[in-house]
C-alpha cells in the first residue's frame, strides 16, 4: 500500500483564549479517498482543516503532507504548501465584486509574482485552465458575471473551480453545503465526488448530515470535544455510534 498523502499525528490546537479545540488527534488520509469528518459544531472539525493548510497554527503535533512535516513551517514554505492544498468554505469566500472567471484565476495567485498579479497579467494558459475548470463544474457560461450575482450553489461551484485552478493534490472542504438548500446540496456534493473520482484528487470534507456521509464518503472520522471517537466505513455508523457522536437522544435528520 502506498504512503498516505496526509498523516496527522497527535495534533493539538489550543486557542489563545485557552479553548482546547484539538486534543491530540491522529489519523491518516489515503491517496484518492473521500474522507468525511463529522461531529457537532465546536467539535474541532473546522480547526482541524485549517491546521492542515496552516490558516491556523497548530500548538503541537505533526502534520505530514506528502512525506514532509509541515506543522511548524513558516513564511514562504506555508505559501508553497497552500499551493498544493485547495480549500472550499461554508460561505464560499469568493470576491463578490469580481467576475466568476477572475475569482477562479485567484487560484493561480500562489504561482505568480505579486506585481505580475496585481496588474491582472494572467497568462492565456491560466485563463484556459480557469475556463476548463468552470466547464467541469458546469458554469462556464457564467464566466463574465459578477460572483455576487450567482446563487449559493453556483458560488460554491466557482469556489471549487478556484481550488482546482491551484492544481492541488488534496481538497479540503469545510462544511461546503451547510448554507445551501437540500437540492443544491447534492449538486455540489456530486461535483466534489466528480473531482475525487475523475481527477483523482483526495478530498477531506466536514459534513453535518449523515445521509450525505453515507452517500459520498469512502471513510468517516468522527470528532467529539477535540478527540476522534469513531473511525471507519460510513456503513459502520450504527444508531449506537450516532448517539455516541452526537449525544444521547439525538435524532438523525434525513436530507434527500
Amino acid at each position, binding site marked *: 500500500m502506498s504512503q498516505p498523502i496526509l498523516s496527522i499525528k497527535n495534533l493539538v490546537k489550543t486557542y489563545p483564549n485557552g479553548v482546547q479545540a484539538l486534543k491530540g488527534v491522529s489519523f491518516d488520509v489515503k491517496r484518492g479517498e473521500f474522507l468525511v469528518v463529522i461531529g457537532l459544531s465546536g467539535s474541532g472539525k473546522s480547526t482541524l482543516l485549517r491546521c492542515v493548510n496552516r490558516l491556523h497554527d497548530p500548538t503541537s503535533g505533526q502534520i505530514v503532507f506528502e512525506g514532509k512535516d509541515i506543522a511548524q513551517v513558516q513564511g514562504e514554505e506555508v505559501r*508553497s504548501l*497552500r499551493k498544493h*492544498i*485547495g480549500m472550499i468554505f461554508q460561505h464560499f469566500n469568493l*470576491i463578490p465584486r469580481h467576475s466568476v472567471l477572475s475569482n477562479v484565476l*485567484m487560484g493561480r495567485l500562489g504561482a505568480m509574482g505579486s506585481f505580475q498579479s*496585481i496588474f491582472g497579467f494572467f497568462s492565456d494558459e491560466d485563463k484556459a485552465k480557469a475556463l476548463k475548470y468552470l466547464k467541469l463544474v458546469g458554469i462556464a457560461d457564467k464566466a463574465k458575471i459578477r460572483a455576487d450575482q450567482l446563487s449559493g450553489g453556483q458560488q460554491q461551484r466557482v469556489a471549487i473551480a478556484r481550488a482546482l485552478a491551484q492544481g492541488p493534490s488534496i481538497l479540503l472542504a469545510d462544511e461546503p453545503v451547510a448554507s445551501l438548500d437540500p437540492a443544491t446540496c447534492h449538486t455540489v456534493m456530486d461535483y466534489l465526488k466528480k473531482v475525487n473520482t475523475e481527477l483523482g484528487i483526495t478530498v477531506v470534507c466536514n459534513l453535518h448530515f449523515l445521509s450525505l456521509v453515507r452517500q459520498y464518503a469512502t471513510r468517516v472520522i468522527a470528532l467529539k470535544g477535540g478527540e476522534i471517537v469513531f473511525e471507519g466505513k460510513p456503513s459502520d455508523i450504527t444508531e449506537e455510534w450516532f448517539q455516541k457522536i452526537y449525544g444521547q437522544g439525538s435524532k438523525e435528520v434525513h436530507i434527500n
Partner: protein
Amino acid sequence: MKSYVFRRTFFDSFIFAYFAMILLVVAAQPTPEQMLNLGQNFLMFVIAMVIGAALSAGLNKSKNSSAHTLGESLFEPAYKKAEKAERFWYKTFAGWQLVIFLGVTFIVGLKSTKFSVTELLNEDGFAGALRLFKGLFNPNFEILPKAVLNIIETVFMAFMATTLAIPVAFVLSFFCAKNIMKSPKAYAVYMLLRTLLNFTRAIEALIWAIIFSVWVGIGPFAGMLALLIHSIASLTKQYSEMVETVSEGPIEGIQSTGATKFQTVWFAIVPQVILPYISFTVYRWDINVRMATIIGLVGGGGIGTMLIQYQGQAMWPEVGCIILVIAIVVWGMDQASAVIRESLK
C-alpha cells in the same frame, strides 16, 4: 465592571468639584491674582474631587436607587438598570443633579461669554451692523473676476491636497488596520502610526497653515500643504476603519490559494473597501474646499486671503461679493459630492 465604577466615580467627583469651585468663586470673590494661581486652584479642585468620590461611593451604596448619582445612572451596566423601577426624574437624586448641573452651567456660560442684551440692542452698534449688511447685500461685482480667479485657486488647493493625500493614505491605511496588523512586530508599527496620525489630526489645519506659511511663505502652496497633512491623517483614519470592517471570508479564501500577504490585501481587502474609499475621498475634497477658504484667512492663499484683505479695510460691498462667490461654490461642491456619493452606494 471595574471600569464602570471608575468612570462613575470620576464623573461624579468631577461634577462635585465643578460645583464646589463655582460655589467658592461666588462665596469668596477671589482677586484676579488668586484666580490665576493655577497650582493652588488645581489642588483645591483635586481635593474637591476626592470628597466627591467619597460622596459618590456613599450614595451609590444605598439600597434605595433614587439616591443613586448621575454617574451611576449613566454608566451602570444594562442588567443593573433593568432591575430598577421606573421613577419620575424629580423623585431621584440623579435627576436633580442633572437639572442643577445644566442650570448652573448655563448661568456660568452667560457670565463667561459676557452675554449682554444691552450690547445686542445698542443703537450705535446696531447701526454699524446695518451698514455692514447694506454693503454685503449690495455686492460690488467689479471685483468678481478677481474673486473667481481666487476661488479657482482655492478649489485647486483642495483638489491637489486631496489628490496627493490619496496614495499616501491608501498605503498607510492598511498599516493602521488592527485586523491585518496582528503579529507583535506589525502591532508595534500599527501603534506607532496610529499615535503619530492621532497627534497630527489633533493639530488643526489652521495651525498647520500658520506653520507652513512661515516655512514656504504665504500663499496657496502653504495652504495646500496644510490641507495635505490634515487630509492624509483624516483619510488614513477613515480608510483604515473601513479595512477593519471587511469580512474575513474572502481573506481566508485568498490566503488558502497560497497568495502572498500583498496579494491577499490587494485581492481580498481592496475590492471590499474601494467604494467607501472613493466616497470618503469625494467628501474629503468637499471638506477641503471649505477648509481652504478658512485657511486662506491665515495666509494660505486663495479666496480666504482675498477676503481677509477687504475685511481688514471694511470694504463691505467687496466682502459681500466674495462671500457670495464662496457660498455658491461651497453649495455646488456640497450638492455634487452628495450626488456622487449617493450613486456610489
